[in-house]
């Protein structure tokens, strides 16, 4: 009980004040006075009396420390005191403090920002209950026809068999993108619809914020006109009206009853605006050879991904045997949903995370260097503290508190920088970043930043603290201010730090260099079309409003009116734009070859275009003729083939007049009427340019992209073009308006973004490295002023001195470059999925980057070298 009371008093002492430092000092002072008085009474001289009293008190510092230790909890109390002391010391040297906090702020800020993206995209679970059990099921396509493709969308009949036969899943659901043209309420809008099967929301366990979600019963074709709205649509288009459930909206020209509203948090698939029942009819359910749907499922609690994969492999093998014409070579793969969603950006994000970690390490090394340089000026202060009895542990603790305080301030600055840059980062990622809306500074990011700051403080503080307290106190006192320390040992520590900085900076620069070259290579790729002065826009004709002949009529009329507009040079349509990956891949059979089932036929891109498309994008006709308005429904079916397609099927001879069958469309043979130049249909990085073009009028799909070539600014004609389309149908939505240049730019957005960020981080690293080299050399020159003075007095010329300093600076730089090159060679593999047209071991990049680093090292040495030549031998000698 008594002990408890004592503890409580001690615990509150540092907080409640108890006995203050001033009080303790006053009491010790009074003790000294009383003792001195006594000594004088005993006959000593006043000086002697005071001296004896001092000695008897046993070292003021030690008495005071012991006294304080009893006052509260010594550790806690000492730390509180050290923090106050450190804060005062830092405020006293604003230059050092500002530099240190800025360096740390950049390092920690970059880490916090990139981590917040990684956290939201890769680490945080999807916003559904028990999200770890959600998986995606894909087809794996036959390797010969789809080399390098590991995931493929799913055909309805195969999905239904998987669903019926598998036991590893609680529920399995299928969905596909659906057009959803919203009309009748303000500006017509092409919403992104998701057609979902009745199990879809049960798989996700997504609860609505209003009304209900879709479920069994909604798939009944008679009652299937119900819709769930996304929260953002409900808010922006319908004023967040809570009574909106039960009302009707017009989608694709038909009335749909709104049954519920889904929170944006739960938005899945990621771009969906509205959810409609899939409601397959019998004909659709039977499709096995056309793969257009995506599958999500929830594993049973007792099953795991491995079991599910094994089970689906068995089912797929049976399907292959049962339906060889459609399913030969088609397997299945189960992937955790979260991993699947982020797989495209995962590598890029992890590379960036590595890059910012490098920047932080460099910042640490720099701070350590700064602290060492500062310690030089404080060696006297530390020696005095040691002499009056402060233990080494206490001094180390105090120095670590100082570096931690710097790190904490750096973290505060860094968090502010991160908060500011997060918006910028997610925006520049563009559409390539899934879950971008979830990126935020949440608790986990704060925790991460705290840990980073603590580790940074200790990492940067330990080496200097250890070095500074190692020296002999008496030695330091004997030496003049600013000249203490054991020279060779300390310089070695600093050289190691600089070497590490140079090596890390070089690794980052190599990464940035490789991406810069990648981007240059991508920009140099000829897309096969002339994208300048071309604007594109999506025109979605809903199936409900337009049947097949009507769609052709609409298309003709639209092109006729657009072409008549002033400023428009040419206009045509294509279903899926080139370069923008996506679009139809279809099996092709050549007439005259041995017949093969669809599943074994070679697959290639098939694009539906209108006459005039070749001229609009300036593709060249190599052989035969272009499509004309006469190539219509009911006329003999015709196709154009790309030069690479012609080379594949008819090497060395003209394909004109040959015939082929596109089995997914129908069984009619189509005559090749011409050969056109190759276009990068699958994106700039792809080498596959094999394409077959069919006349839009002979296939008539629902989706068309209008492509308009203008005389001047392509965006200038947009209002007139949209006006022309609306003059045919005032309710016709026009979406995704963009110049062809920006479509191509968007296709390499991820590389561009990674390149920009990595370049920024690498430049930062180089700058910090240069500061490090500069710091070490200036310090070295300052330390060796006497030596330099003697050399000059003995006749060394300025050039010799310059050479001496620069050689000293280049030594750690060269070692750092060597280590960095080795590191970059080892780590280059991580970049292999991001680079294009260069190998991760690209010699030119390595040479250029090494030269740059050496050059920067040289420049950073020049100022200290110059300063060394200004040493006045007389002054330098006298100073000692």
């Amino acid at each position, binding site marked *: 009980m*008594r002990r408890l*009371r*004592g503890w409580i*008093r*001690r615990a509150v002492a540092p907080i409640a004040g108890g*006995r203050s430092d001033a009080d*303790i000092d*006053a*009491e*010790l002072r*009074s*003790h000294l*006075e*009383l*003792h001195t*008085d*006594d000594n004088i009474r005993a006959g000593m001289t006043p000086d002697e009396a005071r001296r004896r009293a001092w000695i*008897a*008190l*046993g*070292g003021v510092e*030690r*008495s005071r420390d*012991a*006294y304080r*230790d*009893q*006052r509260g909890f010594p550790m806690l109390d000492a730390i509180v005191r050290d923090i106050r002391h450190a804060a005062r010391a830092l405020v006293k040297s604003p230059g050092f403090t500002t530099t240190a906090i800025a360096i740390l702020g950049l390092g920690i800020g970059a880490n916090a920002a990139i981590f917040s993206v990684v956290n939201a995209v890769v680490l945080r679970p999807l916003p559904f209950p028990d999200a770890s059990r959600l998986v995606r099921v894909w087809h794996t396509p036959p390797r010969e026809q789809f080399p390098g493709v590991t995931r493929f969308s799913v055909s309805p009949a195969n999905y239904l068999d998987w669903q019926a036969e598998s036991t590893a899943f609680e529920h399995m659901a299928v969905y596909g993108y659906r057009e959803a043209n919203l009309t009748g309420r303000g500006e017509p809008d092409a919403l992104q619809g998701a057609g979902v099967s009745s199990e879809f929301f049960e798989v996700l366990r997504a609860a609505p914020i209003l009304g209900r979600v879709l479920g069994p019963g909604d798939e009944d074709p008679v009652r299937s006109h119900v819709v769930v709205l996304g929260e953002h649509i409900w808010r922006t288009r319908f004023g967040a009206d809570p009574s909106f459930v039960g009302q009707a909206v017009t989608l694709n020209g038909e009335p749909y009853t709104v049954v519920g509203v889904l929170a944006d948090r739960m938005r899945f698939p990621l771009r969906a605006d509205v959810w409609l029942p899939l409601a397959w009819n019998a004909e659709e359910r039977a499709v096995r050879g056309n793969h257009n749907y995506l599958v999500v499922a929830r594993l049973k609690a007792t099953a795991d991904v491995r079991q599910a994969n094994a089970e689906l492999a068995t089912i797929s093998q049976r399907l292959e045997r049962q339906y060889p014409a459609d399913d030969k070579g088609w397997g299945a793969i189960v992937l955790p949903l979260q991993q699947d969603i982020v797989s495209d950006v995962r590598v890029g994000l992890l590379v960036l995370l590595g890059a910012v970690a490098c920047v932080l390490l460099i910042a640490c090394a720099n701070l350590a260097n700064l602290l060492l340089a500062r310690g030089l000026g404080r060696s006297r202060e530390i020696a005095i503290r040691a002499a009056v009895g402060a233990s080494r542990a206490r001094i180390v603790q105090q120095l670590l508190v100082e570096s931690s305080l710097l790190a904490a301030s750096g973290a505060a600055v860094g968090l502010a920088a991160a908060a500011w840059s997060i918006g910028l980062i997610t925006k520049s990622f563009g559409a390539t970043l899934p879950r971008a809306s979830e990126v935020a500074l949440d608790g986990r990011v704060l925790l991460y930043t705290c840990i980073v700051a603590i580790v940074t403080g200790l990492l940067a503080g330990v080496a200097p603290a250890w070095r500074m307290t190692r020296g002999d106190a008496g030695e330091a006192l004997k030496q003049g201010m600013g000249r203490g320390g054991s020279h060779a040992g300390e310089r070695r520590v600093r050289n190691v730090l600089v070497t590490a900085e140079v090596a890390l900076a070089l690794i980052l620069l190599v990464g940035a260099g490789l991406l810069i070259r990648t981007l240059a290579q991508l920009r140099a790729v000829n897309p096969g079309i002339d994208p300048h002065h071309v604007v594109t826009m999506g025109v979605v004709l809903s199936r409900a409003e337009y049947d097949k002949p009507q769609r052709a009529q609409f298309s003709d009329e639209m092109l006729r009116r657009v072409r008549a507009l002033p400023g428009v040079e040419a206009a045509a349509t294509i279903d899926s734009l080139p370069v923008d990956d996506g679009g139809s891949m279809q099996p092709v059979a050549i007439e005259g070859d041995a017949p093969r089932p669809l599943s074994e036929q070679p697959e290639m891109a098939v694009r539906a275009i209108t006459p005039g498309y070749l001229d609009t994008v300036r593709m060249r006709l190599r052989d035969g003729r272009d499509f004309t308005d006469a190539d219509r429904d009911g006329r003999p079916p015709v196709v154009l083939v790309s030069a690479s397609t012609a080379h594949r099927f008819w090497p060395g001879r003209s394909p004109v007049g040959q015939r082929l069958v596109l089995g997914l469309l129908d069984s009619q043979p189509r005559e090749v009427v011409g050969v056109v130049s190759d276009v990068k249909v699958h994106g700039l990085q792809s080498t596959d340019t094999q394409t077959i073009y069919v006349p839009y009028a002979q296939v008539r799909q629902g989706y068309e992209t209008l492509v308009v070539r203008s005389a001047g600014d392509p965006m200038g004609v947009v209002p007139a073009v949209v006006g022309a389309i609306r003059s045919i149908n005032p309710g016709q939505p026009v979406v995704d308006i963009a110049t062809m240049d920006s479509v191509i730019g968007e296709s390499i957005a991820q590389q561009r973004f990674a390149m920009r960020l990595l370049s920024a981080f690498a430049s930062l690293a180089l700058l910090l490295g240069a500061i490090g080299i500069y710091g070490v050399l200036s310090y070295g020159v300052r330390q060796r002023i006497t030596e330099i003075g003697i050399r000059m007095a003995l006749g060394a010329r300025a050039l010799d001195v310059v050479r001496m300093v620069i050689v000293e600076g280049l030594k750690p730089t060269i070692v750092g470059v060597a280590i960095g090159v080795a590191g970059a060679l080892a780590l280059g593999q991580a970049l292999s999925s991001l680079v294009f047209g260069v190998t991760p071991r690209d010699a030119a990049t390595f040479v250029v980057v090494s030269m740059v680093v050496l050059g920067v090292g040289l420049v950073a040495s020049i100022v200290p070298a110059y300063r060394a030549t200004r040493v006045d031998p007389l002054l330098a000698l006298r100073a000692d």
Partner: protein
Amino acid sequence: MGDGDVWRGTLALMVLKTLDTMGAQHGYGIARRIEQTSGDRLVVQYGTLYPALLKLEQEGWIRSDWGISDNNRKARFYAITRAGRKALERESREWERTTEILARFLAPERT
């Protein structure tokens, strides 16, 4: 620290006894008094005295306040409390018993 602990324990007892017999006294005075009483065979380490005083005060056995010394110096004066007197009695008895036992152990060896 074994030695120090014993010393601290006895130091506390000496401080309490000193304050009990002399009345309020400052730290320096307490130290001198202990040294004198011991016939100058003990030297009080002031680095241990003040923490010991603070500890006693935290236990509630003594209390302290600033005052003026005989020779007109400002000093902190310590005085024993009621709890302190009880503790002194208890600890004295304990100490006497301990020394008595120890004396019995050690006595035969002397002969």
